[in-house]
Every structure is written in structure tokens, then in C-alpha cells.
């Protein structure tokens, strides 16, 4: 009993120190490689959820889910006039539009007047815009904020989700995903 137990108790005495080192190592590792806090939609590969067309402003045309399954792919962009990163994203969306990407907008929790002002000030890359006053469409897509963008193929299947604003650096990737959805 004596020798074995002595060795064991000596090892046990250092166990808390070992545990502390493990905890510190884990904390340092998490600090160095932060966790992905984005919530990814699990609707990729599924059909777009049903939603009706709702007028967003006096001068824009709206669309419903059935308009997304007419043979051509679309970029569906969730945005809002109250969303600061959306101002910068509008310019990048303009670039995508000039490359032949058809962009449909979903205006989340917006007022017609605010939205019209936003489109005038920041630019209007949208072919059609639908209003989503209670985030219903956003939740149905599995989206968790603005701006967020989905690529929907010609048969109305969601193919890709981009979380956060599309930066100029993201344009080539978005274009290639869009081509693949054709």
C-alpha cells in the first residue's frame, strides 16, 4: 500500500495545478481563435419559404416567394434604411447589378418614407422590393440580422447565405456562386 499510495497522493497534489494549466490553455486558445458567433441559416438547399408581396414604398414594385421560382437566379438582400452597414453595401450591390446580377430587396422593419429617402441617398440596386414590417420573411429564411444576402436559384431553391454586408472583396465569390445557381 505505502509506496503506491504515496506516489498517487503526490500526483494528486499537482492535479489542481494541471487542471489550472489546462483551463488557461483553453482560454488562450479561445482568445486566439474566436468562435463564430454568426447564426447560419439551415434553409440552404430548401425552397424559399412562402411570403406575399408587400408594397415597400410608393415608387417600388414588390415581389412574393412565387416570383423567385421563374427560371432565373436572384440575389435576395435583407436590408433596412436604419441599418448603417447597408449604406456602404448599396455601392457594392450596384457593382453586382452592373455585372448582370438581379437583386431583389427585402426591407426589414422599415417605413415607406425612410426607405424612399435611403434609396435616393444610398442608391437603388433593387429590381423589386418587398416590405417585411414584422421580420416574418427574415425569420422564415433563417436570417438573423441586416444586412444579409441569399442566392436563390431559378427553381426557387436557396443556394447560399452571406451574413453581414457584402464587401468589395466578396464580389468575385458572390459572382461565382451566382453563376453556379444559373
Amino acid at each position: 500500500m505505502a509506496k503506491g499510495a504515496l506516489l498517487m497522493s503526490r500526483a494528486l497534489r499537482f492535479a489542481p495545478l494541471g487542471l489550472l494549466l489546462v483551463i488557461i490553455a483553453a482560454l488562450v486558445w479561445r482568445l486566439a481563435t474566436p468562435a463564430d458567433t454568426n447564426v447560419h441559416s439551415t434553409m440552404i438547399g430548401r425552397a424559399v419559404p412562402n411570403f406575399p408581396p408587400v408594397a415597400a414604398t410608393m415608387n417600388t414594385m414588390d415581389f412574393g416567394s412565387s416570383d423567385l421560382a421563374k427560371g432565373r437566379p436572384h440575389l435576395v438582400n435583407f436590408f433596412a434604411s436604419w441599418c448603417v452597414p447597408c449604406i456602404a453595401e448599396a455601392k457594392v450591390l450596384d457593382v453586382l447589378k452592373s455585372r448582370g446580377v438581379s437583386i431583389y430587396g427585402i426591407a426589414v422593419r422599415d417605413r415607406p418614407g425612410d426607405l424612399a429617402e435611403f434609396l435616393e441617398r444610398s442608391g437603388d440596386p433593387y429590381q423589386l422590393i418587398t416590405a417585411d414590417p414584422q421580420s416574418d420573411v427574415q425569420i422564415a429564411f433563417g436570417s438573423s440580422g441586416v444586412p444579409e444576402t441569399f442566392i436563390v436559384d431559378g427553381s426557387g431553391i436557396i443556394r447560399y447565405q452571406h451574413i453581414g454586408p457584402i464587401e468589395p472583396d466578396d464580389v468575385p465569390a458572390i459572382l461565382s456562386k451566382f453563376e453556379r445557381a444559373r
Partner: protein
Amino acid sequence: MKLYALSLAFLAAAIADPQPLLADSNLPPAYWSNRQLPNPAQEAQAEALMEQLRCLVCQGQSIADSDAELAGDMRDLVRRRIAAGEKPSSIRAWLIQRYGTWISYAPTAEPAAWPLWLAPFALLLVGALLIRRRIRTKEG
């Protein structure tokens, strides 16, 4: 005095700057987001479900606890659907289809959660072994 002037300048900047620090919409909260359903049984069902749904914005809070607008809209969605006669389990399944099991605080039976289910038994076993050893050494 300098500090006073500085804080005054900050205050002026805060008032003059129309850009909110945290982006929030200008729309009022959705109708059912902060309003109880008239039917107490339905409201109880809705509240039980809302406490088990995770807020997408303030991750770590339930939508029942969160002040985020999206959480309000989700409470509105839950209450609307409960009032329409939908079962809480089906609303939860609908949300899990969109956001994954991440959205629900109720543990599922998927393999990733197995350690969670097995942990109590494993701990009990370890405890029993420890007690047995204790008793034996005392006897010895």
C-alpha cells in the same frame, strides 16, 4: 472645469448626432411582442416556449428575456401561432428547420448531446466507486 466642458461636449455630440449607436428600426414593437394573449392557457403555452427559444441577437438570452427587436418579433410570431391553434412543438420544429437546434434551449437526442444525457449516470457511477473505496479502506 476641463472635465465639465469635455462632458458637455460629449453630451452635445450625443444629442446632435442622429445616428444611433445601436441600429434599431423606427417601427414600434410588433403587436404581440409585449402583450399577453387574452386566453391564459394559450399565454402560458406561449411563455413556456418563449423561455426555451434562444435570441438571435443577444445570444445566451431567451427571447422572453431579450429586448432585441428581432426577439420581440419572434415573441409576436410565437403568440400569433399559438393563438391560431398551432402546437408549441410544431412552432419549435419550424424554427429548428430554419436555424438548427441552436435556436432551442431544450436538449435534443442528437449524438452531439449524448454526453449531456450520459453525464449524470457517469457521475453517479464515479461517486459510487469512490464511496466503495472509502468504505473498504476504512474496513482495512
